[in-house]
């Protein structure tokens, strides 16, 4: 690990100020992705701005027909939130599937979304529910937020403060765990909120999380696993690595989408 300056602001405003004054700084929001690459000397931020003491960006709340989750809410706290489990258990299952207890007790939703790891679970949930990412500057629709592998619409000096998930009556997440890392080798989030039907896939695409319009179209006729039978997506554009071929990932998208829908309809 290289040397860096450590900051621990207590307000979003302070954090944003520090970020704009230190263009090479990184926000620390759990650190389970950032700290390992720093230890391996693959990242060299000039400063770390620790968000753990920032006020007002922690907690799960029911706000009308939405669930609002503060950016610094730990995965374990989202997974165990009674409010969320009551309102939308399909979303609570997502953080419950991340990593191991150590990761779930440190990692945060804001950190995960800002990092946009192509194998992370939360991006599928955000896209699969049409969430809104609320920053210190603006509101960004999930459809516009995830712009590619490890890449987001966040601009310099912009900090995620909370994520708002519209409550879908039917929502389910099915994940095929990467055998070594426990990330999603492929993960599919499916939801139905009125006429808005979404199927979002993480882990599979070489450009990060994506929606599957053909599946969504098929599900409009009837939101049932049966509607997806025989449907697959092309292997082109799928990730290829030592753990899975593009063909296998494409195949899993079909299988997991059916299982996610089955979970959603309970």
């Amino acid at each position: 690990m290289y040397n860096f300056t450590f900051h621990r602001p207590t307000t979003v405003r302070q954090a944003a100020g520090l970020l704009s004054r230190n263009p090479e700084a990184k926000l620390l929001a759990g650190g389970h992705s950032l700290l390992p690459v720093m230890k391996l000397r693959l990242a060299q931020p000039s400063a770390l701005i620790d968000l753990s003491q920032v006020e007002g960006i922690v907690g799960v709340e029911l706000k009308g027909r939405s669930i609002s989750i503060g950016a610094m809410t730990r995965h374990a706290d989202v997974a165990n939130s009674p409010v969320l489990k009551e309102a939308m258990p399909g979303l609570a299952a997502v953080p419950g599937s991340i990593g191991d207890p150590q990761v779930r007790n440190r990692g945060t939703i804001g950190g995960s979304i800002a990092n946009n790891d192509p194998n992370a679970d939360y991006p599928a949930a955000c896209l699969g529910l049409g969430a809104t990412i609320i920053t210190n500057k603006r509101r960004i629709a999930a459809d516009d937020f995830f712009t590619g592998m490890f890449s987001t619409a966040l601009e310099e000096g912009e900090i995620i403060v909370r994520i708002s998930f519209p409550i879908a009556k039917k929502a389910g997440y099915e994940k095929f765990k990467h055998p070594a890392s426990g990330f999603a080798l492929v993960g599919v989030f499916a939801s139905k909120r009125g006429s808005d039907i979404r199927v979002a896939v993480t882990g599979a695409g070489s450009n990060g999380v994506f929606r599957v319009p053909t599946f969504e179209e098929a599900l409009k006729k009837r939101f049932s696993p049966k509607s997806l039978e025989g449907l697959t997506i092309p292997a082109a554009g799928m990730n290829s690595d030592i753990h899975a071929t593009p063909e296998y990932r494409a195949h899993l998208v079909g299988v997991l989408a059916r299982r996610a829908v089955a979970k959603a309809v309970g």
Partner: protein
Amino acid sequence: MSSTATGIGAPVRRKEDFRFITGHGQYTDDVVRPGETKAVFVRSPHAHAKIKNIDVSAAKKMPGVVDILTGAQLATDKIGNLICGWMIHSKDGTPMKMSAHPALAASKVNCVGDAVAVVIAETTAQGKDAAEKVIVDYEVLKAVIDPAKAQAKDAPQIHADIPNNTIYQWHLGDAKAVAAAFAAAKHVTKIDLVNNRLSPNAMEPRAALAEYDEGTDNLTLWNTSQNPHVARLVIAAFVGMAPEHKLRVIAPDVGGGFGSKIFIYPEEVVCLWAARKVKRPVKWTSDRSEAFLTDAHGRDHVTHAELALDANGKILALRAKTIANLGAYMSTFSSSVPTYLYATLLSGQYNIPSIYCEVDAVYTNTAPVDAYRGAGRPEATFVIERLVEVSARQLGLDPVDLRRRNFITAFPHQTPVIMAYDAGDYNASLKKALEIADVKGFGKRKREAARHGKLRGIGYSTYIEACGIAPSQAVGSLGAGVGLWESAEVRVNPTGSVEVLTGCHAHGQGHETTFAQLVSERLGIPFENVSIVHGDTDKVQFGMGTYGSRSGAVGMSAIVKALDKIEAKAKKVAAYVLEAAEGDIEFKDGKFTVAGTDKSAAWGDVALNAYIAHKFVGADLEPGLKETSFYDPTNFTFPAGCHICEVEVDIETGKTEIVNWTAVDDFGTIINPMIVEGQVHGGIAQGVGQAMMEGVVYSAEGQLVSGSFMDYTMPRAHDLPSFHVGLTETKSPSNPLGIKGCGEAGAIASPAAVINAITDAIGSEDLAMPATANAVWSALQRATPRQAA
């Protein structure tokens, strides 16, 4: 059965665990010496390259740098090369071709991670900063990674003195007899196998701490070794670092080895050399990334094998051709693993009249490959157990029945590949395993699974291994550079407590417990009054260390011999104490008695009298009670058994779950059944890891793709079912306790059981290890594309 609560056969809790689980273990990295510096290695990022220049000038100016040393200086100081200590001769009679292995590469690097320089710094962080400033000018060369391609005419030449990258072309057995048997066979089964390359991943990474004492000219090395005396011998006699009596090697608590800590590595040599140069202690502790790159890997065979059978399913002959990848350099015992530890076990538990095996060992631009839990025997078991299973399927026979028809039932049994099995009952372990696994109910379970979209399969592995390594004369005749006996010294203190010094080394096996159980049983003294000393060449007489499931069979036999001498001497002392004839003294349950009288002396009285020497004169009996023995076994031991694996495959995803595991093993005499069961569990987990998860992957350019736990899949508790473990017992006639050894059995037996089960489930033999979900799904696609789509 045990005669005492802490004797042989008692499930005594491990003495060492309190220390380990409360954080009081003393590992190499925990040892801190005054003025200690840290070593950071500069490693090659290329798999194959010439070193044109190394510029350390900028790096030397970095804060905290004590010195920076390179391979050129190592050569100037005449530090010798690392060696492989087992000579193998090719079939044409020529000796194996071993190229130079310097501890720091001076002119050429041959794998990613090859060390070219070392930074000695005040702190590791400063050392890393400086290492980044060492400028190495490389001329990158084409690399060869795949052992099957290493011998090709156009393959890159790795070592200038080794044509075709071929170390040896060895064979064993009677080629003519095998050819004749195949010509006459009714059925021939042919298979192609890859035994996947594994990373050992001991929990404690390798480490070395070297200290030079200018006053005495003595060197001390603390290191993560399974065999400190062998390390001292090689570093003294071959590397030429210091004479043996001026070098002390201490292997303190060691956190797992699995074979990978048998070998003598460049880093410990460099730390010793550097400590003498900078005149300060030098410590290196591997990080996990370095461990993946530089710990000797295991397995990595490419094999074609054939089995000839007659019309009744009797095996007539076996032949195999294997290419073994030994990596960029020949590690300490690498040459023996794919030869005498492999082909000699190809007979399995079966009566096979003739066997012929050819093995080509090759260099590639990858990390060195050497012994890893099982070492050669898992590879042999995988070949024979896959051949037998596939043969049964091709012949339409029950695989259990085919095994029974071919089992060896009379002992001793001389196989056509050197080994003479001395005892066993293969039908007994099979029968017990079939009962525990409820094989009769499998059909019902399979139908039930099918109702849930799952394919259920069952696979057997009736394995054998050669352990208790090893009779010295036998291994000497096969090329070993050392004898493989073991030593023990038993010191009885004046108060009757006992210290046992053993040449074995514990790095997870629990010797402090099991060896004490033996002493407790033999001397009738409390288990707590026995301590086991190991791992320090200044304390312990010469010893060969721990590997090859040898510590019980060989190490404890040495203790038995020393205890025999102790008992004989103590009886002489007791005769004086009890004023009786020596021939009338009896010793039982810690008490000396005079036959036919009620006179007795307690163990402690006799021990005290041996030291105060008031009751006898020195001319008649030497004072003291301390004896040493060196025990050389008369044969290998042959643990064997039957493992049965049941799996369920998710048809849609290929994800395979092990739903049932039965292991029935014959380990001969059991000292501590709890520890034995733990060894079986751990071995199975490692074997399942090889079969379904683990695999070292290099890119075509020689970059290590599986270089972290994010990409190298280790088996986890939730990947495994609760094991059903049973035992049968035939005692080994080759050592006084009848022990066979249990450390490797699980890892040897299990890969074949897993693959036999999955191939049974999916109805296709076309499946390589590791059988990941993707691999199983792809095999299903190839076999029945419509069903799996």
